[in-house]
């Protein structure tokens, strides 16, 4: 089999394929995450280009957990079956069936929708051949004291900061202003957070939003800014922990979780509420707010 390795948030993903993996099989954004070998914490993905008969049995006998839009998700014994039917016909992978192990550390993906030639230049946005790897990493992170948070993340001189807010709150606008002043973006729209001994680290990753603006960097989470567009600039620390809790829960991208998974996720959120300084940031379009973010 053909093999490549990618590393994000301390997790190495080994991708093995029946077809040769070309320089353009995966989108260019993956290059910065590529590593040479497996690491201490490695998960495994295999790409196969046939549909085994056993999958039909699993689907027939599986417990239907979720069925919406392009996803049908089933559970049988200690396996999870993800049946992905792309709604975007121009996607190179179209549809794929994934069989995950109980802890999501092993995934076999089956598809017949792509030829060897197309696979070589497919520029996939997901190592799992789905529309995103978010669904896989949300599970993997949950088992590693982590989660995915809907936010834009930056490394500013070694300080990790997150920008959060509802659609239209100005995340993209402020991100552009910070980048123009030299802040290093970790990821647009989705940030991997992991807890290590009461510290929180944010990690760039490839599960971005509409713009593949991402890096493989990491930083210790120092501040969270909840954004409000305004005609003035101000930063005010939020003292009300309940308000922080509500805002973090709104920004949590949670996977399908059994009870134990929720306990872990609650622990992570509770720790963040207690320990991470959170601010209400009002800003106008002058960019003056950036000075306060760069020099807290």
């Amino acid at each position, binding site marked *: 089999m053909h093999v490549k390795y990618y590393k994000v948030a301390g997790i190495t993903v080994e991708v093995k394929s029946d077809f040769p993996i070309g320089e353009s099989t995966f989108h260019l954004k993956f290059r910065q995450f590529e590593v040479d070998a497996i690491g201490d914490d490695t998960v495994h993905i295999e790409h196969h280009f046939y549909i085994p008969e056993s999958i039909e049995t699993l689907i027939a006998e599986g417990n239907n*957990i979720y069925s919406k839009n392009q996803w049908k998700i089933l559970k049988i014994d200690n396996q999870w079956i993800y049946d992905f039917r792309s709604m975007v016909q121009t996607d190179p992978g179209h549809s794929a069936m994934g069989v995950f192990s109980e802890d999501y550390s092993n995934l076999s993906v089956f598809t017949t929708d792509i030829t060897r030639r197309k696979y070589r230049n497919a520029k996939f946005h997901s190592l799992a051949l789905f529309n995103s790897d978010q669904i896989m990493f949300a599970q993997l992170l949950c088992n590693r004291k982590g989660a995915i948070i809907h936010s834009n993340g930056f490394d500013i001189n070694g300080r990790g900061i997150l920008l959060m807010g509802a659609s239209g709150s100005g995340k993209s606008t402020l991100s552009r202003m910070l980048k123009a002043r030299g802040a290093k973006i970790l990821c647009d729209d989705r940030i991997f957070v992991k807890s290590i001994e009461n510290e929180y680290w944010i990690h760039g990753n490839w599960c971005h939003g509409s713009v593949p603006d991402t890096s493989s960097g990491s930083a210790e989470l120092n501040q969270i800014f909840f954004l409000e567009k305004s005609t003035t600039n101000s930063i005010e620390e939020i003292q009300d922990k309940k308000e922080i809790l509500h805002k973090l829960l709104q920004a949590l991208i949670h*996977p399908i979780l059994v009870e134990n998974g*929720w306990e872990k996720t609650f622990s992570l959120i509770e720790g963040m509420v207690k320990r991470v300084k959170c601010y209400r940031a009002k800003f106008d379009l002058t960019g003056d707010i950036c000075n306060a973010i760069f020099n807290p």
Partner: protein
Amino acid sequence: MAIDLSKHYRKTNDLIAREIEGELVIVPLKSGIGNLDAEMYALSATGIAVWNLLDGQSTLEEIIKSLSEEYQASNEEIKADVIELLDELLSKGLIIER
């Protein structure tokens, strides 16, 4: 769904709840699993007081009476709040009739 004050209501078994910073965060589960679009609910202190009494042992009338004594508020005042909360909890499938 109309709330009947003479009935007993209790929490479903298929949920997970955790108190964080004085708020009770509740997630509905389905056969022990919370889905991708499972919504989370957070109850404040007064909501938690009602939630804790929804054990299927007392009628809603009894719960309202007990809360109005505890909070020294009128039955009518408490009743309005309880019915509003029960309506929401029922519609989200977090509680059922005993």
